[in-house]
């Protein structure tokens, strides 16, 4: 078996299933965990699942645009991580915890 033919038998539906599973794991983490830093990591996981799907479609279609969208997703993820971690540090300074369930002041 040539090394090329191994990769060519992967269907795109396999990548779709994989990224769906990763996305749902990330969603489960966002719903279940209380630590704010783990929540941010789960969001990164969901973004990566979407990136994988973008790349799979882009390279199966032979179109570069999908991979450029991955770059823009990475830009947004980096900005989100920077601002999110700054907010987390500020929250830790005020409440001495990173538990998001303490942030219920706006609940009324």
């Amino acid at each position, binding site marked *: 078996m040539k090394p090329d033919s191994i990769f060519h038998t992967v269907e795109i539906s396999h990548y779709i299933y994989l990224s769906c599973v990763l996305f749902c794991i990330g*969603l489960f983490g966002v719903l279940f*965990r209380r630590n704010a830093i783990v929540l941010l990591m789960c969001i990164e*996981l969901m973004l990566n699942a979407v990136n994988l799907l973008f790349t799979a479609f882009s390279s199966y279609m032979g179109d570069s645009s999908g991979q450029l969208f991955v770059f823009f997703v990475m830009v947004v993820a980096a900005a989100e991580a920077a601002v999110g971690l700054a907010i987390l540090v500020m929250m830790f300074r005020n409440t001495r915890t990173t538990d998001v369930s303490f942030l219920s002041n706006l609940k009324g």
Partner: protein
Amino acid sequence: MPELSKIPWPFLILSFISILCALYVVTSNSPIRSVLALILTFFSISAHYVMLNAQFLAIVNLIVYAGAIMVLFLFVLMLLNLNKETEPLKSNKWLIGAAVSAGLLLLVFTASIQTSSEHIMRHPEAGTGLVKSLGKVLFTDYLVPFELSGILFLAAMVGAVMLGKRDAANESDTEITGREEV
């Protein structure tokens, strides 16, 4: 669902690694272990990118995600000394609710994929993931979003600095008195 025996083994191994590491990220009690498992997940996703002939994206994913963003997470974890093993988990009610909603979403996804009739079998084309073709598209068709992302980065940088700065009242309370005691 596709039969497992028909799927090539490199894809299977990489998928198992990424799914197991992702599960560990979600279920681990210690945030440091979560970060390390997430870095492993990013490595396996980069390997998927290599298999998809997106070589440049694989390298960028390693540098930006595993190299920069995850190190930022680790820095914050270690600076704030957050690596407590005793994170209070949500109650069982929340566990069941989160599991049911994530499972339902997965069910909807798989059902919608199965009913889609067209199965694309085309193999990944070489050349779309190289720097040459990506750069050509980025600097012609996507020039305006590229410049706008620069502005977004600037705004995020200014925002992070503003949020991370101590305000004057706080500073006089903690930091200066702390220094005097030392």
